[in-house]
C-alpha cells in the first residue's frame, strides 16, 4: 500500500496530491475535493478557520486509509491532505485521492473516506459571518 497523509497550512494542489499515487498498476484514480462554501442556505460565510490536532489528525487519516484497504482490497493507494488556518471562499480545504487497478470499488471507498474524516479526525472549522462566528460540526 502506498499511503500519504498530511495536515498543512499551505494551499492544497489537487494535482500534487494525485501525483503521490503515480503507479503503472493504477487504472482508476478518484478524488474528492472539499472547498470552502460561501453560502449555506441564505447565510453568507465570509471565511473559515480550520484547526487540527496535527499529530493525531495525521494518525487518524492513516487509520482511515487502513480501514479502506481492509474493506475495499482493490484500493491500493491513498493520499489525503487537509489544510488548516484561514481559508477564503472557494479555496480547497481537503483533497482525498484513491487509486486502484479498476474503478469498481473506488467510489464507495471515497464516500467512506470523507464521511469517516468528518466523523473521527480531530479537525475543526469555525465559520465567520458578517454578524458572528461559530464552530461547526455535523456530530
Amino acid at each position: 500500500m502506498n499511503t500519504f497523509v498530511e495536515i498543512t497550512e499551505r494551499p492544497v494542489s489537487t494535482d500534487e496530491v494525485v501525483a503521490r499515487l503515480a503507479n503503472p498498476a493504477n487504472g482508476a484514480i478518484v478524488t474528492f475535493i472539499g472547498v470552502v462554501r460561501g453560502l449555506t442556505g441564505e447565510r453568507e460565510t465570509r471565511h473559515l478557520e480550520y484547526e487540527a490536532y496535527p499529530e493525531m489528525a495525521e494518525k487518524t487519516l492513516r487509520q482511515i486509509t487502513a480501514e479502506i484497504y481492509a474493506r475495499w482490497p482493490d484500493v491500493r493507494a491513498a493520499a489525503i491532505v487537509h489544510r488548516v488556518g484561514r481559508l477564503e471562499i472557494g479555496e480547497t480545504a481537503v483533497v482525498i485521492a484513491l487509486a486502484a487497478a479498476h474503478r469498481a470499488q473506488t467510489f464507495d471507498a471515497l464516500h467512506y473516506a470523507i464521511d469517516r474524516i468528518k466523523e473521527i479526525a480531530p479537525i475543526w472549522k469555525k465559520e465567520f459571518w458578517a454578524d458572528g462566528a461559530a464552530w461547526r460540526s455535523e456530530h
Partner: protein
Amino acid sequence: MRVNVRFFAVSREIAGMAQQPHTLPEGATLQDLQAQLFADYPALAAQRVRFAVNLTYAPLTSPLHEGDEIACIPPVGGG
C-alpha cells in the same frame, strides 16, 4: 503524576490557552481529570467533549500515567 492537557477549538477558547500541565494523584483516571477540568472551566461541561490519551480516543475509565498527553476534543468537523 504530571500530565499535559491540550485544548482545541471551542475548548481552547474556553480554557483561554492551548495547553496546560495538570498534577493528579497516582492511580487517577481520565474521569478524575475531566472532573478537575469541568471544575476549572464550567463552560467545558456544556460541550460534548471527548478525550484522547497519547493520540488515541480513550474512555473515561482509562488510567493516566506520568507524562501522558491528554487532548480535550470537542465535536469535530473537518472536510
